[in-house]
């Protein structure tokens, strides 16, 4: 599954969840399948009891079912729909891994479940996790409670880029933290002060004090961070740091409505610029003024809208920089939302009926961090839709209420006959664009098949990799390259591919953290060529090669 699709799906789901729940009108698929297996400790093979098992439906990025293992380490999930799933398991200090993974960096194996099928021996072995403990103090040597501490892996070195590996823990009143369930390897330990901006300064005990993000062994410069080495099942103690105290600020200002009067009753929210997560929300006072307290230095986006305005009919946004001093007289002026309406054009070759719960959503291009910009709109039975959005350049995305539109994708977006699929639509306050054509199809190309090794046997495990023949498309995030692991029957399947010319290769193991283009370059000669037309489903046979 490509990364970008996962991220977008998560965003769409978040938006869908924010909108009111809509009734599901389609007949529910039968829940007739059963899945069974055991959970073991990887080092000694002992069964693990009370391990938590989570089954995720791949197409919908949502949980199908959960269970806990019994005293013998056995679990059973019943009442399942047919489909493709991944199964992940967690237990105490053990590393969380999915079926088909030996380590969390391996790609998981899908589980293919048919109606009324009993799938057995879906067993998972959990590696014992490493632990990092330490203590966070301020520049006076006093413990700081409430600091977020995380273990992060380097995903690139120049410049050094880190990614969370596991959970974020919070220091207690002694300044102590404990990171657990870590896979063996090298980690950078990062301490950050979470923004807890308060609408009401009197209610916040952390109004004035913040701390600079700090990397072990105690530097604010990511390049000077030192990794901590973790061995399975062992504890690295005293990974302690001292943080520098910085001053948090208060932001005050006014909000003016599109009518030129104080915008009230209204709510104003603050988010870190570039992020979608709201950090604080407060009421705009009757005279249009507001106060937000406890903001550490940084760039923030403010967004105000009238209370009860669920259609985002009128919004005021601005961005501010905070550097320790209070920021006064921030002025926000509301603009009326732009309206986009149009209709769906279904690809002539598409099979099947459009799901009745399809949604279309808007995202701003170049996220400005002003939060979810609009509510997704439901596409009416006659294929028309209407959306409201804050002004700016936006793109349209397809979503659904219950994941039923997963097989559908946008082919093209046209405004006034011009193709704006990739360029986006420029919206001005109060605009009404009524001629948007949204061309959709459910004809997505796919490749599936089997793999044999040099002796002609079907290997138990492999990773199939599909990538474009066009070097220009060897980017980290793009739909032209995807990987797949064999399901429990040894078959792989890669779907949702754009039409194009591809290389396909099956390797024994994909080393994490290696350069993608180097890998593609080495694999090119060993790979099979596959050309896919729009909506084409190909079946191929691949020979196993070495990935290293």
């Amino acid at each position, binding site marked *: 599954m490509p990364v970008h699709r996962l991220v977008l799906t998560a965003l769409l789901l978040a938006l869908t969840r924010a909108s009111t729940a809509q009734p599901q009108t389609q007949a529910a698929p039968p829940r007739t399948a059963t899945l069974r297996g055991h959970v073991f400790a990887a080092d000694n093979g002992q069964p693990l009891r*009370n391990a938590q098992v989570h089954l995720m439906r791949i197409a919908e990025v949502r949980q199908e079912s959960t269970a806990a293992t019994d005293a013998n380490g056995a679990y059973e999930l019943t009442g399942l729909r047919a489909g493709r799933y991944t199964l992940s398991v967690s237990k105490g200090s053990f590393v969380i891994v999915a079926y088909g993974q030996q380590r969390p960096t391996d790609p998981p194996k899908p589980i293919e479940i048919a109606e009324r099928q009993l799938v057995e021996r879906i067993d998972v072995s959990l590696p014992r996790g490493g632990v990092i403990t330490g203590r966070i103090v301020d520049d006076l040597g006093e413990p700081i409670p409430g600091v977020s501490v995380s273990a992060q892996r380097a995903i690139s070195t120049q410049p050094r880029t880190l990614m969370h590996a596991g959970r974020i823990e919070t220091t207690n*009143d002694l300044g102590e933290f404990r990171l657990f369930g870590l896979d063996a390897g090298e980690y950078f330990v990062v301490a950050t002060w979470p923004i807890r901006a308060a609408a009401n300064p009197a209610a916040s005990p952390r109004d004035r004090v913040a701390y600079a993000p700090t990397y072990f062994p105690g530097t604010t410069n990511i390049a000077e961070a030192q990794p901590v080495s973790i061995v399975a099942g062992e504890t690295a103690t005293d990974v302690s740091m001292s943080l520098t105290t910085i001053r948090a600020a208060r932001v005050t200002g006014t909000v003016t409505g599109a009518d030129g009067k104080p915008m009230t009753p209204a709510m104003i929210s603050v988010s870190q610029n570039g992020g979608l997560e709201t950090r604080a929300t407060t009421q705009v006072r009757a005279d249009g003024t507001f106060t937000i307290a406890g903001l550490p230095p940084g760039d923030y986006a403010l967004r105000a809208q009238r209370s009860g305005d669920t259609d985002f009919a009128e919004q005021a946004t601005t961005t501010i920089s905070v550097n320790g001093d209070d920021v006064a007289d921030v002025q926000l002026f509301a603009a009326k939302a732009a309206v986009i309406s149009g209709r769906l054009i279904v690809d002539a070759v598409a099979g099947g009926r459009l799901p009745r719960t399809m949604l279309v959503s808007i995202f701003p291009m170049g996220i400005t961090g002003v939060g979810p910009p609009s509510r997704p709109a439901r596409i009416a039975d006659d294929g028309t839709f209407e959306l409201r959005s804050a002004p700016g350049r936006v793109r349209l995305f397809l979503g659904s209420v219950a994941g039923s539109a997963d097989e559908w994708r946008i082919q093209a977006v046209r405004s006034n006959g011009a193709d704006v699929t990739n360029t986006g639509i420029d919206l001005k306050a109060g605009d009404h664009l009524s001629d948007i054509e949204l061309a959709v199809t459910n004809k997505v190309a796919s490749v599936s098949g089997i793999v044999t090794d040099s002796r002609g046997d079907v290997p138990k495990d492999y990773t199939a990799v599909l990538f474009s023949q066009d070097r220009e498309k060897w980017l980290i995030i793009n739909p032209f390259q995807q990987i797949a692991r064999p399901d429990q029957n040894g078959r792989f399947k890669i779907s949702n591919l754009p039409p194009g010319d591809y290389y396909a290769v099956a390797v024994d193991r994909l080393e994490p953290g290696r350069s993608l283009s180097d890998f593609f370059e080495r694999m090119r000669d060993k790979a099979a060529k596959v050309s896919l037309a729009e909506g084409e489903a190909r079946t191929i046979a691949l020979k196993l090669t070495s990935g290293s």
Partner: protein
Amino acid sequence: MLLAVACSAIASGQPPLRDTSVKSPGTARIRGRVTDASGRPLGYAEIRAGNGGREAATGLTDREGRFDLADLPAGTYTVSAVKPTYLRAAWGEERSGGPGRRIPLADGQTVTNIDIRLSRGGVITGKVVDEFGDPIVDARVVPMRYAFVQGTRRLMPGGPGAATNDIGEYRIYGLAPGQYYVSATLRAFTAIGSTTMDHVTHAPMFYPGTGNAAEAQRVTIAPGQTIAAINLTLTPVPTSRISGTVFGTDGGPAGGGGVMLSPKSPSAGIDPRQASIGADGGFTISGVTPGDYMLRGTNPAKHESGLIEVIVAGGEVTGVQLVTAKPSTVRGRIAFAPSSTSIDSPKPTTIALGALREWMLGQPVRDAARIKDDGTFEISLASGHVQLRAGTPDNSGGESPPWRLSRVLYDGADLGDSGLDVAPNATIENVVVELTNATVELTGRVTDSDGRNVRDCFVIVFAQDADRWTVETRYLGVTQPRNDDRYRLQLLPGDYYAVAMTEVPAGAWTDRDFLLLAREHATRVSITGDGAQSLDLVASAAPVF
């Protein structure tokens, strides 16, 4: 980039942390020091100075615990200090959390030695294990305290709580002194729209090992105390799936609406569950632990709702049938008793009138009336037992007595205390809601047993007739002594108990059990319609229960 700038400002020795934040044009100054209980200075403590109830300035202590709030306008100040893991304290407070002493400040004056001692918050630690004795990760442990909400004494979170780590350990800190009940719950990981759930879950558990809040053991925390080994075992309980159908008054399925399942009695750790109603009227809620629940179905499109009790004892609960009803109507008019002052009666449309229900489904329910200029009103509401309550906001600043509810007349009887039974689909006409401003002022002093004035207390005056202890009763007055050490209350004529108590949890006076205990310390007083009455009271400690 910006962070680096901020850091260098501090590193270069400038004192930006000591600035007052709110630019005030005054010339007065307050200086002092913050220490811990042993006298050790506390740096980076936040200082807040209030002037006449408004925040006038804030600051931070330096490394030696000193603070200096400059440029203050003249006024009467209170100063308090806050630091994480310590208990907030006001200068001159007589008990933890009590009000601070006032500091009169003239223009140009500097007041020094405003020294504040902070005590550490209490700590509770322990371990949570499963039925095998294995540690449980991510159990949520919450310190619960009794609080009074709309006439019900219920366990509410008394602090942020903590989650257990991989070895089952938790540590809750920053607790105010007092009594706590420790509860542990294991929230199942439920991703967005989980479709089926585990058939077994871990029910909320109270220390030392009971699912029943009434059997929980109290943990008493003294200032700065750490209480360890508050250990809990979470055992699995079977969960049930509840399914059924919701119909409307037209007999058709209530598709498009939603159902909400709430525990019948407020209990720790069980949140209301919601589900949508399908086009065929069907709904399903899974993962429900055993207990008595109320299931409410609503159909917003048709403005209908219904309520049914569901008892879950493990095993599937299928075929629950719920019929929603159209809202009932109460109509009548607002009347004003002859004014006791030269002030005219207010416009009827300014009256806040509504039908109030006893605490229900974890939410107070109030249906507001639509009032016309001629004083007639209409309330659209679901069936059930309600109290009609009305009044005007007292914004005269004590210049004139407010208008308050005197009687609710229906069919020749005053239903002000007993309330009104509204049948499903009913229309009740000719209800007269009468307001009066002819209240009597009760005033007096509160002293301790040595005759010293007590200001940090509540004066609670409540009806002798326990039938009048209803939700938002007309026969209750609560206040605190003012700056002149006198309390003042406006009351309707009647027979009352009066009591002055220290350390009363807010809202306790809405609880019948509290009033029963408070009655034993109370003085009887009869309010008649003949001008202001005086009653001095001796403060007593609030009953502990």
